[in-house]
Structure formats: structure tokens, C-alpha cells
């Protein structure tokens, strides 16, 4: 059965970059949303195996999504893909239950390494 994957970023380019960096031949079903509000709505209505989440977004930002996810346990695996790479931000994201942090721009190598580290690949 395919793994449902959700990509959440307000930038079309960034969404495409994540999608293109996903491993070839991985049996997945990719959906995309453009802000945190849409992500929460989607997660409440659909089962998602892994979510790739941007932080700096309108409506609800990535931190907001992580806070709601922590309370409601909507998705187990969240990989943050962000341009805000400050050490304090990484710590905050980790404390809110994100599995891993990828510095933008994302690449196939960065993404594969993380998926391998966590046995998702």
C-alpha cells in the first residue's frame, strides 16, 4: 500500500523541489497544501504517513502546525524543510516533535539521508 505523503509550503517552487527530491521508486501518494491552515484541515480529514513542513508561512505557520499536531497527534513523522535555520529554531522544532530538519534548498541527497536515518527507506 502506498504511503500517503503531505507537502506543505506556501511556495510552488519549494513544493516541487521537495516532490522532485523524494526517492525514485518509493511507493507513495503525494498531496500538497499551501499553508498551515490547509495542512491542519487536510490532516484532520486524511491519514498521512509523513509530512514535509515549511516554517515561514501565512495563515498558520509551521510552528503553529507542529503545536496543533503535538496536541492532536495527527501525523507521526514530520520533517521540517525550512529557510529559517537558526539553532534556536531547530531546538524549538525538535521540542514540538518534528523528526528531522532539512535546511533549504532541499536536495535528493539530504532527503534520502534523513529517510534512511529513520528507517523510512
Amino acid at each position, binding site marked *: 500500500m502506498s504511503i500517503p505523503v503531505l507537502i506543505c509550503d506556501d511556495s*510552488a*517552487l519549494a513544493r516541487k523541489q521537495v516532490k522532485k527530491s523524494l526517492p525514485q521508486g518509493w511507493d507513495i501518494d503525494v498531496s500538497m497544501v499551501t499553508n498551515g491552515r490547509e495542512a491542519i484541515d487536510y490532516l484532520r480529514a486524511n491519514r498521512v504517513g509523513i509530512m514535509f513542513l515549511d516554517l515561514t508561512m501565512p495563515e498558520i505557520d509551521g510552528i503553529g502546525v507542529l503545536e496543533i499536531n503535538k496536541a492532536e497527534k495527527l501525523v507521526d513523522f514530520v520533517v521540517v524543510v525550512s529557510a*529559517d535555520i*537558526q*539553532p534556536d*529554531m531547530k531546538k524549538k522544532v525538535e521540542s514540538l516533535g518534528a523528526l528531522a530538519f532539512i535546511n*533549504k534548498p532541499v536536495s535528493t541527497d539530504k532527503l534520502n539521508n534523513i529517510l534512511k536515518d529513520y528507517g523510512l527507506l
Partner: protein
Amino acid sequence: MNITLSEDQRDCLQELINVAMGQASDKLARYLETFVHLDVPYIELVGSDTLPLLFAQKYNGSSVSVVSQGFYGNDGIRGESLLVYRRDNAKEVASLLGYEPEEANENEQLADISSILTTTFLNGLAELISNQMSYSAPRLISSLNTSLDSHLEQLSFNWELALKVDISYQVTDYSFNCDMILLIPGEAIQNIQSVLDRILEEY
């Protein structure tokens, strides 16, 4: 010259700016040992002749200092970066940098911060588009004397179009922020557009 960015080009440029801005903020945060709050950057193309008016509206009488620096990359990509500081932030800047009040004058402090923000941002942006930047010496201009007005006038005379990138670097715990404006002449914007199209084709 009539230049407009397509929606894809704008999205692409905004994302590149986002990443470069993130790198600059990280550098600043480490340098100041604090946290820098990031907002979604706002970009728009404006005629440079509107620049003095935009300045007048945004900074509405408050006195500002501007650090102005030219940048030159390959493939005809060049422009001028303006970092705008409100002068009532001067004390915050000094304490952020750990200066004693009488130590190092304000101009040196602004030069320090500007060099971190401008070069990290532009080097980051250059790397994302496989380019390389060199820089002219930064100039500090203050609205306390009339030189800012004449500088803006001169810029608006030299540059036809401005790609205005409003980036606000807001430092937590201090009421310090600064705005970055990039001025890019018409033909350089067209060169950037080809770069954006090349990137968009890859995805």
C-alpha cells in the same frame, strides 16, 4: 522598459530570497547571540523614480541611516543594496553588539551589521543561482543631513526599475529592526528572469 514578473517567476524569486534571508538571519543571530524573527519577504517591481516618495511615506519623518552598497555578479546581474536603519535604534544596536556607549561610533556598528546582512544574503542568493558576487565599498548615508535625499535622487536617476525586496530583520528582545531594499536595473532584471526560468525548467 516594461518588465513584469510572471507568477511562477515571482514565486521562484521569493523562495530564493527566503532561503538567502534565512542564511543571513542565522549569521546575524549567531553574531549577536540572539534570535532573529523572520517574516515572509515582500517583493515588488517599482519605478525607481518613486523611491524618494516611498522612503518619505515609510519612514515618515523619522531619521534613518542607510548603508548603500553595489553588487556585481556574472551574466549581467548587478544592483545596489540599501539597508535602512531607524536612528532611534542606535542605542539598541550598540548594546546588541556589546559596545560601551562611548566606544566605537555608530557608523562602525552599522557597518558591522550591514556587512553581515548584505554579504551573507547576496552570497547566499548568488550560490542558489550558481553565480558569484563582488561588492563595491559600502557608503553610509544619514537622513540627518540632506545627503540621503540626493543619494536617493541619484539612484532613481541611475536605475530605471527597482526590484524592491522588503525584508525586515527583527531581533527578539531588542526593538531593533532593519529593512533591506535591493535596487536592480531593468536589463539586470531581465537577466534574473532568464535565471529564474532556467530554475523553473528544472522542476
